């Protein structure tokens, strides 16, 4: 529950109007500088408001990005310097902190663990979620509505309630503290929203193409994999980004179900652990370097695909 984000009713996201788009629209009635209008007061009010609100916008931008920039700058500084003064520029460009973080603080191992988990859980979630969603959306069979509600209902209940029994379910299946166990749990807990979202997506797709494929003799399975799945690509991208970030950033499930062997810890666990260890060792540099390693790739990918990422994460909340 801790890391899972955004389980909300799903439909299409609406595009925010960018200023450029807004510029294209003409609204001749409302020219503040228009002569002969009693717009002067409004203009002045607008000016004050603009200065004030503009200031707040800048302040919040600094608040949002500041801590992250601070971490990145400090990751290049010497640990001793950081201790003395939290602000400052790197005196010499050395990647020592990163080397320390990567090998000694095990961030490399943790990253690899996270990647291995995601390599199994993300495709698994997408495949199983789409399979269930496709059948629910496009086939009539007894219990269709019920299965749909079963998945949709799963979005509501908190993982924290299920975690104790889940721990012992995994223990009994000999899957506790193993990668396959964590992968299966990630998939299972991502299924409700994935299925819910993809069901509404498959419902919007035209049925003609699938019918044509059936007439041409394609089996149900083939129609799904070769016709419908490619057609559902936009939906898959949105929900894929959503699941990637949700699973990559997951903290609670690995903490409860993957805590036995420190070498198997995923990145989020490793960083939390590192922050505790740093308290004893005082190696701030390695901590900041570890944090940078964890967030810079994600932020970079986000900046490149920011539109898709924003859409993926707010998917469905906009009606």
């Amino acid at each position, binding site marked *: *529950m801790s*890391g899972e984000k955004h389980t909300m*009713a799903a439909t299409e996201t*609406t595009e*925010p109007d*960018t200023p450029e788009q*807004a*510029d294209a*629209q*003409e*609204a001749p009635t*409302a*020219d*503040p500088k228009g002569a002969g209008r009693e717009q002067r007061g409004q203009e002045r009010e607008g000016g004050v408001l*603009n200065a004030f*609100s*503009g200031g707040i*916008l800048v302040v*919040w*931008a600094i608040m*949002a*990005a500041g*801590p*992250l920039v*601070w971490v990145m700058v400090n990751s290049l500084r010497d640990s001793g310097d*950081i*201790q003395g003064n939290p*602000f400052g520029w790197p005196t010499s460009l050395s990647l020592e902190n990163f080397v320390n973080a990567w090998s000694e603080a095990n961030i490399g191992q943790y990253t690899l663990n996270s990647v291995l988990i995601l390599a199994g859980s993300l495709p698994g979630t997408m495949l199983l979620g789409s399979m269930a969603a496709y*059948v629910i959306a496009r086939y009539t*069979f007894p*219990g269709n509505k019920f299965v749909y509600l*079963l998945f949709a209902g*799963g979005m509501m*209940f*908190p993982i*924290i*309630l*299920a*975690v*104790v*029994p889940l*721990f012992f*379910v995994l223990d009994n299946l000999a899957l506790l503290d193993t990668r396959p166990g964590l992968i*299966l749990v990630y*998939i299972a*807990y991502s299924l409700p929203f994935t*299925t819910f979202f993809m069901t509404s997506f498959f419902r919007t797709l035209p049925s003609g193409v699938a019918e044509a494929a059936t007439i041409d003799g394609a089996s*149900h*399975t083939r129609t799904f994999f070769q016709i419908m799945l490619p057609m559902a690509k936009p939906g898959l991208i949105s929900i894929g980004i959503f699941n990637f970030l949700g699973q990559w*950033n997951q*903290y609670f499930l690995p*903490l*409860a179900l993957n805590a036995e062997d420190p070498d198997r810890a995923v990145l*989020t666990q490793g960083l*939390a652990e590192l922050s505790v260890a740093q308290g004893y060792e005082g190696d701030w540099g390695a901590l900041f370097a570890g*944090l940078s390693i964890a967030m810079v790739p*994600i932020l970079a990918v*986000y900046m490149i695909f920011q539109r898709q*990422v924003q859409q993926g994460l*707010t998917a469905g909340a906009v009606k």
Partner: protein
Amino acid sequence: MKRGGMKNDVRTVDERSTGGTSERSGAKGGARRPDPLPISQWPLFASAFLLPPRFTPPRVKNDRRYRNLDKYRFVFWFLSIPLVLYAIFVISPFFQAFYYSLTDWTGFSSDFSFVGLDNYSRLMDDPTFWQSMRNSLFLLVVAPLATLAMGLFFAFMLQAGGRGKKNEAVSGVTGAKFYKIVYFFPQVISVAIIGVVWAAMFDPITGPLNEVLRVAGLDSLTQNWLADPNIALWCVLFVLCWMFVGFYVVLFSAAMGAIPKEIYEAALLDGARRPTTFFRVTLPLIRDTVHTGWIYMGIQALDAFAIVHIMTINKGGPGDSTLVTPVYLYKKAFDSGEAGYATAIGVLLLLVTMAFSVVMMLFSRRERIEY
């Protein structure tokens, strides 16, 4: 949702997956057709149902019931894998939790006894539990208010806060796109990272927060942020808001962008200023989005597990000043070996979540405005 129905279906799924399918599938084929399938044919059809299409014997393939069998085979196989996984890892633990909450199970050994509602009556007299509940409820009430208010303000500024240039009724401030990208940063990075970063930010000696205050000459305002029981919970609240404001800015911007410009023009013609426009035009028109966002933020605030667990002193300290119910549950379950008691906490937490959702539903508007 129908509880009874759910159980039935879970059982059917189990039966099917353990191979008790033969009668069912045969019966299904038979029930849908006017002429029943002869019993001697059942094994053949059942095996065709369970095996991939390429192993279907021609005898079955040429039968006119095959179309139906093919469809149900597909539905069955495609649903069974996700459903079995879902049943084992999500549904069954969920129901087991209710049962375990009535036992004195430690979680370490396999023997435990049924104690009825003992755990719940113990909870009623557990001051730590009530402390955690107070903290959680504080976050539940304040975090959505603060976050949504800020999200709305920023989104409105970005969408309609600009100088009305180029003959427009409304326009965003310059750099709206840039702000949206930056505000959304905390959403893409992990809560674990956020917890660690803010723990470092709040550090009284090496943290930048106090350093900024010192440089600004406001030494009196420097605080032992996370070590002061009176402030620590506010720090948690702040970090929660910090995480989610960007999400709501993007969400509300999109909703506001969907409002037709003509409505703003009409408001402007009528002499409405910006605050009036916001409260009388924008807010009512995006009410549904705000409402959904409120529920979502409330659920996030009720959780707050990772932030408290990573950022605060002693995972909920100092004292119990930042202990939220999920963290208390976790400690009971995995640190002090009171699994039964922990699940009882979980059940109460679920009740609170449901009560919150119900209250929010009561506030939801029945009629919708189409535009």
